[in-house]
């Protein structure tokens, strides 16, 4: 009874439209959350890639080059450069900092030797070459030529890096190692890690080597509970979508009890009726998914946190919509099954 299902959608179009819009909003939030979760991973990948390092040497007790405040002994740099497989090694510092202002901004301050390993690959402008210069992640909202006040230093923006940040959208700023040491260690030539290029083998006393994969894992670990929460909320939103579609389909089924009885009494098989209801639910869900996807594209850029919705999420959404529609129609299906054709004999 596909035609009856489609005609019923037209007949009760306002109600279905409300359900579609509600579900679309929920689906769009699901997509934005998926984008949020994906952006956590993407920003880590970008930050690591920006430095151009192949591995890092960090203090033995530290967890990663971007999370460590433990300084390495001075002799480790020379030892790192002597390791087999190492083609280049430079000191590196990554540490949290705050840019003062009406609305102070927390950033990850990254210091590298200009032109050395760890020096950022910028998307616009150039990397800092000398003290007093800074390259910033685009989310900081600064353009080339602007100035940034950090501690007692006024730094001039010479380059920007698209989407560079950590910890869920906190922007990175790239300075010369000398400026970072000045701001952090009172000018002492200290560093928290060594950025290595090549394929290092062997050990360094007082330090350990970490791969890019380990570095990524370390950075994502700090966002673990946040990502789990987002994924959990995503599942909850899918259930909310199922509830919205389910309630409207069930309500429709309740109002169509007499119709179902007439269909059965006139020889329509129950499977045909159930198919019609399921088709209704799936159509509502799929249209909601389409509108939700468009809505997500509008919402994602204005979302306070970076939300980079992966293409796969758009591809999976229709599948989720069909599953949601299928689940949502269960209550209505159950009602339709139990309708007795004898009900058709009732009066008006």
């Amino acid at each position, binding site marked *: *009874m596909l*035609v009856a299902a489609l*005609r019923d959608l037209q007949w009760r179009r306002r109600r279905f439209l409300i359900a579609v819009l509600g579900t679309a909003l929920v689906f769009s939030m699901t997509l934005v959350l998926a984008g949020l979760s994906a952006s956590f991973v993407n920003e880590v990948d970008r930050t690591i890639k920006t430095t151009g390092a192949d591995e890092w040497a960090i203090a033995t007790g530290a967890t990663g080059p971007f999370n460590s405040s433990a300084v390495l002994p001075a002799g480790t740099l020379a030892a790192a450069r002597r390791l087999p497989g190492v083609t280049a090694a430079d000191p590196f510092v990554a540490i949290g900092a705050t840019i003062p202002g009406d609305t102070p901004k927390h950033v990850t301050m990254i210091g590298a030797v200009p032109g050395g390993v760890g020096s950022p690959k910028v998307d616009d402008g150039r990397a800092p070459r000398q003290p007093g210069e800074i390259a910033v992640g685009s989310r900081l909202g600064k353009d080339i030529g602007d100035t940034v006040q950090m501690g007692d230093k006024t730094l001039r923006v010479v380059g920007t890096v698209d989407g560079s940040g950590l910890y869920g959208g906190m922007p990175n700023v790239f300075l010369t190692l000398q400026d970072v040491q000045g701001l952090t260690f009172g000018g002492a030539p200290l560093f928290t890690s060594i950025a290595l290029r090549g394929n290092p083998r062997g050990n360094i006393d007082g330090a350990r080597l970490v791969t890019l994969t380990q570095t990524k894992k370390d950075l994502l670990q700090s966002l673990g509970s946040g990502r789990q929460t987002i994924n959990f909320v995503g599942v909850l939103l899918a259930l909310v979508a199922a509830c919205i579609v389910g309630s409207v389909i069930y309500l429709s089924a309740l109002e169509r009890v007499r119709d179902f009885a*007439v269909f*059965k*009494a*006139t*020889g329509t098989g129950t499977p045909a009726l159930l198919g019609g209801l399921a088709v209704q639910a799936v159509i509502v869900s799929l249209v909601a998914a389409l509108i939700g996807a468009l809505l997500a594209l509008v919402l994602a850029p204005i979302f306070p946190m970076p939300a980079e919705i992966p293409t796969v999420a758009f591809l999976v959404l229709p599948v989720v919509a069909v599953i949601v529609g299928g689940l949502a129609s269960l209550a209505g299906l159950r009602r339709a099954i139990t309708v007795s054709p004898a009900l*058709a*004999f009732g009066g008006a």
Partner: protein
Amino acid sequence: MPSLEISDLVVEYSSGGYAVRPIDGLSVHCDPGELVLLLGPSGCGKTTLLSCLGGILTPTKGRISFGDVTVTGLEGSQLTEYRRHTVGIVFQAFNLVPSLTALENVEVPLRAAKVPRAQRRARATELLVQVGLKDRLQHRPGDLSGGQQQRVAIARALALDPPLLLADEPTAHLDYIAVEEILRLLRELASGERVVVISTHDQRMLPLADRVVELVPQFGKAEAAEPEVVHLAAGEELFAQGSFGELIYMLESGEIEILRQLVDGSWELRATLPAGRYFGEIGPLFGMPRSATARAKTAAVVTGYSVRDFRQRIGPQGMGDLLSHAGDAPAEASAG
């Protein structure tokens, strides 16, 4: 040539835990081409009988056959096939699907029977033209008058040219002009091999019928009957639950038990009446079956009065009191 045969049909269901038998031992034979009227007031089992004939309700006992098909022996998909190809049903409240056009409503059984689109459309159009709705094909039920809706319902019932057409109070919601149109149409349809069964409480339809099945016994003589004195031995039954009766009884001496049968077949004692009480009044007054069984607990003498005599005996005030207390326990115990 398929004839309709109903043999010793019993339909029993539970109502508030009590056994109710709207149809009890009905037997009817209908020849092909006949228009059969099921006549009786509301609640007498007309619709129940139609449901059984339509393969929608399974009777408790008895047999229904149409031609070679034993309807009461069908199950599952066989029943669906029977409903689809053998029976057409015209419902009391039209029961058209509001979201579908007249044409699409008539197409419903054709779709169920998987008739190809072109044939389906042609057949539905042909039927709507036949019932005089050529210019209403694309109208939804809400845009049609009651008579037009009923004609669409008849067209739908005829979609697969069923040899058995059932109509449940087909004129109940129609004005007199529409009634005339529908009656003429139904009369025309009862021809050839087709049997048309119509349930109604409207005696004006009697001239249409080839056969009339009265589901409530007529007690024409009861109005003029003399009071009837009945002597009962202990344990003797005066009347049975579900039976129809014309007399209202006054207990002159002895005791009468009012019993109601439960679904499991056991009996529930509703009241034990002392001498001086009347009982069994609701059924004869309203043309309904007795709602309980009356049985003598001891040797008893009762006098049975016709409804008219009973009215005269208790007077207008007494009737008012009786009706206003009809739902109270003592009146309920009076066994209708």
